[in-house]
Every structure is written in C-alpha cells, then in structure tokens.
C-alpha cells in the first residue's frame, strides 16, 4: 500500500488493511527428513488472509502434512519463518496451540469412546464445554446427535469426519487446520463436508485445508498447488485456470483406449491425457496459434485436421470440442517441469 494512496483515501486504506489481516504466513520454509536426504518441504512461501478458505492441493508425498505440522507447531522447520495469527510457530507455540483447531489426516478420535465422550473430552482439553460454542457446531452435531451413545470407532467414514470436525471446532479456533479431511470419504460425504466448511468460513473462521482431490480445488477461494515439496502455483482457482497457456480440447470416440494411443501418435497433438469420458489434448503451438503455410486450410480450425486424422484411423462417433481447463489440467501441465517419466510414461 503506497503512502500516496493512503493520503488520497485514508478510509479506503484502512479498510483494506482491516480486510486483509494475514492469519497464516510462511516465508521460505524448508524441512528435510533423514538428515537432509529427503526434502519434504522445499522453500515454500504463501500467505492466508483472515476468513479465507484456502486449499493446499497435491498428491501424497507433496509435503502437505509437513506444512500442517509446522504451522500447528508440531514440527520445527529447518529454515524459514512461519506465523499463525501473528505468532511465531517456533517461539510462541503455546499461544498458537491455544488458538487453533487441528484435524490431522489420520483418524484422530478415540474409537473406544462414544461420540459424546469424545466431544466432551476435547472440549475440556480446550478449557471449554459443549454448551459454550454449541452454535458453531450445531449444524454438524445435530446430524451426529442420534448416535451420541455410539462408539466413535463404529461410525461410518463420513460421520467420523464430522465428529472430528466438531472436536476441532469446539473451542471456536481462530484458524482451522484440516489435513486431508475428505480422503477416503465418498462423494456424498465430501460434498456435505465442503458445504460445512463454507458455512464455517461465513462465521469468520480462517480455514487451511489440504486435499489430493483436484476437483475440490474449485471449492476454495485461493489455492496452492504443491508437488514434491515445491509450490507449483498460488492463486485463486479461476486465475490459475486463466493462466493456462494453451487452448484445450476434449476428444472422444467409440474406442477410448485406442484413441489415447492414436492421439499420442498424431503429429499435431502436443499433449494428451485421459480425463474420464474424454481425452484432453493440446495442439502443437504452430497449429493452435500461429498456423503455418503447410496447414493453411486448418489454421482456423485445427479440430478439422484432427477429425480427418482420426477418421483415417477408423474411429467412429468422434467428438472434438474446445473446453476450459480444469485444475487437474493445470496441475499436470505445471508438474511437467518436475516430472521424471518412466518408460511407459508420458509427460
């Protein structure tokens, strides 16, 4: 924020400062295991503002859990600094521990205690009771209430997640850390879970959530794409998608398996990845954008060239249409730089 701008519009300036309070800050965090052999987190920096629903998107082994553990003061970084709610994760660990909620990736409840016993226990640990912040968990807990006598170990995956969320929320934390809350949970429970997160965000709670499911990225306000301990991109999902540098097409035919290998052998196709019912392809740059003399009649519409090529390979019911990339497309593209292909691989 420039001084001039402040002078011009003091009110505006103050407002924006109030609106953007940094709740989580990471500066060049590095964390290694096995005496430096494995770099779990490699020079990671990002910030999360107050009240943001922020996603950490990446596969297993990307370093998501390590970042969570550093921020929840459970691990010390090798180098770099990190702050939660303005407090240093190394020096002020006691303050941070009192003001954050944390749901680890593993099932973090006592299976031999009942739903209610679990909740009561965690409430007491945080110096509070179920009553005090009941309004915050009411939505979620009412679904669990009919089973409050049941042992937590006998709950379904989705219900366990809800109970764990209640336990992490019971003391009305300023920041909520959720490490892969939806892993191994079915689509219905996942959808419900994200609905809950949205409502919690509306109550002003800052949420940092990680997930290996790329489609969940769209449900976050801002995301970090992370792979092998390195950040690939930090931004809003729509900005990341907007930055996708190529036009992307979805292709399908009657024989999807053969289509995949055929597409990879077609000269004008630059990249090709299976995406459910379609394969996503990008054309080599000169076709997609610059169009050279050799391809004079196709330069307007490279789809036609592809259609011909595929018809020559005896594909039937071919469908080609331009699409907006998904976060997964972006992830795959950004991963390309870091990826070491295997013999059967493709990048």
């Amino acid at each position, binding site marked *: 924020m420039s001084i001039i701008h402040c002078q011009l519009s003091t009110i505006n300036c103050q407002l924006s400062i109030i609106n953007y309070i940094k709740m989580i800050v990471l500066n060049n965090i590095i964390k290694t295991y096995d005496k430096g052999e494995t770099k779990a987190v490699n020079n990671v920096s990002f910030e999360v503002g107050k009240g943001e629903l922020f996603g950490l998107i*990446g*596969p*297993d*082994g*990307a370093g998501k859990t390590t970042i969570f553990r550093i921020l929840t003061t459970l691990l010390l970084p090798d180098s770099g600094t990190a702050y939660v709610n303005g407090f240093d994760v190394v020096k002020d660990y006691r303050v941070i521990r009192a003001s954050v909620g944390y749901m680890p990736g593993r099932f973090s409840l006592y299976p031999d205690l009942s739903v209610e016993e679990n909740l009561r226990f965690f409430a007491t640990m945080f110096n509070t009771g179920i009553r005090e912040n009941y309004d915050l968990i009411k939505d979620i807990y009412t679904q669990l209430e*009919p*089973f409050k006598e049941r042992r937590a170990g006998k*709950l*379904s*995956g*989705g*219900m366990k997640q809800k109970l764990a969320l209640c336990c992490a929320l019971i003391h009305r934390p300023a920041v909520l850390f959720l490490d892969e809350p939806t*892993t*191994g*949970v*079915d*689509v*219905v*429970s996942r*959808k419900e879970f994200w609905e809950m997160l949205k409502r919690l965000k509306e109550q002003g709670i800052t949420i940092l959530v990680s997930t*290996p*499911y*790329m*489609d969940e990225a769209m449900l976050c306000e801002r995301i970090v794409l992370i*792979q092998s301990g390195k950040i690939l991109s930090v931004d809003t999902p729509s900005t990341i998608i907007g930055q996708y540098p190529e036009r992307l097409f979805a292709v399908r035919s009657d024989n*999807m*398996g053969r289509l*995949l290998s055929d597409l990879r052998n077609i000269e004008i196709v630059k990249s090709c*990845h*299976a*995406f*459910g*019912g379609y394969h996503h392809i990008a054309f080599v740059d000169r076709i997609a954008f610059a169009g050279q003399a050799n391809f004079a009649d196709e330069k307007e519409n490279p789809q036609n060239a592809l259609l011909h090529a595929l018809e020559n390979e005896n594909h039937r019911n071919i469908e080609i249409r331009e699409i907006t990339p998904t976060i*997964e497309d972006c*992830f*795959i593209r950004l*991963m390309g730089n870091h*990826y070491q292909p*295997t*013999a*059967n*691989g*493709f*990048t």
Partner: protein
Amino acid sequence: MNEIVIQTDKLTKRFGDFIAANEITFDVYKGEIFGFLGANGAGKTTVMRMLCGLSKPSSGAATIAGFDIYRQTEAIKKNIGYMSQKFSLYEDLTVMENIHFFGGIYGLSGRQLKEKGEALITRLGMRNETKKMVSSLPLGWKQKLAFSVAILHDPKIVFLDEPTGGVDPITRRQFWDLIYDAVERGITAFVTTHYMDEAEYCNRISMMVDGEIKALDTPANLKKQYSADSMDEVFYGLARKAKRNL
C-alpha cells in the same frame, strides 16, 4: 466379450441382523474393466471379500473364473490377483525380492519368474531400481509395481481396491495405462475408486447403496438414465438416498 468370468446370483452376507450385502446379482465379462462403486459403508468391501474367497456368503451363489465360491476357494485364489491401496508390497524388501516372493507364492517356476520379472521391469522402466528397497520408491511407482506384481501370474481377474488413492494426476493416468494393457492381454479388471473421472474409464459400472446394487450399466447409459453430465452427479444422485451411511 461374451465369456463370463464373474457370475453372482443373489449373493447375500449377513452379520447378525445386519445385511451387509443383499442379493447381489451381476455378471462380469472377460476382458472387461468393471467399476464397483458405492458410498462408504455400502458393502463394497464385503462383496469384494466374498468374491476373493476370503469370506463365506450367507446365501446365494457365485462363480469366479468358473470356480464355485463355496467349495473351490483355493482354485479361485490361484486365478485372481489382488491389490489394494493399503497393503500391496513389502516395504523392507527390494523391488526384485518382492517380485520373486509374490511370483513364488503363486507357484511360478524359476524360469518363469526370471522371464516375467524381466518383462515387468522393462515395461515399468525400473531397470535401475531392481535392488532398491520398495520403501525408497515414490508412491506412484510403488502402486504401479504392486499392480504389475498382482498380475505377474496372469490371473483371469485382478481385483483393485482403490488402487490410485492419493497418487499424483500423471501417475494416476499411467496406472490406468497399465490396466488397459492388462485388459488387452485378456485379464479382467474389477476396480473400486473414489475418483469419479476414473469411473468413466470403466466399461461398465455398478453402484452399491445400502448393501444393494442400485444401478449397473455403461457410464454413458448411466449418465443418460439419470440425465447427468458426469459420473459424479450420477453417484451423488444415487448415494444421497442412502440411509445406512451413518
């Protein structure tokens, strides 16, 4: 695609009063990729266990690769491969040791082991990793290796229980390439997954809700039937009605 490799008829499993799987009836054809989907607790694991000969059904009938699941469980085990996200390989053995161990328990001879092991290593491009501990491999490689080991003995059917959980998007696609490869060689794949885009890679999909199969068709037909754009919507529409998910 007419030869039936899995045939179940009113397969039921009860645990006391609880009916985990209720009159499950379906056929799976040779060389098919059969997606076996369902919400948490719908009974997928129960059915999988019965089909692998690990658990006796309460009633109903089924044959796997032509063998009866009550009387011929040993024959079934010889003709199937199994891989799950949770357990697949021994982390403290090397790549080659794992290949030899799992090939060995399926009765491959020394020569077969050598040939198939070589072919597997070449296909996966792991020539330089054969002496490395499995624990030192990235997750994606482990999963690909685990799958290749599961089909080393050329089973008729391979059961894959959430094989790609947590794997990065590129490796996930490479994994499916391996499945397609196997299917081309005549192996039938029976797959569970939480990734709905992967459901679309299957030839046919069954949806389990509350212990029953509520839908079974090709992805395209299912989408048409439920007028949905994606399998995600089909799944959501069906599983949302589940009462048991508690």
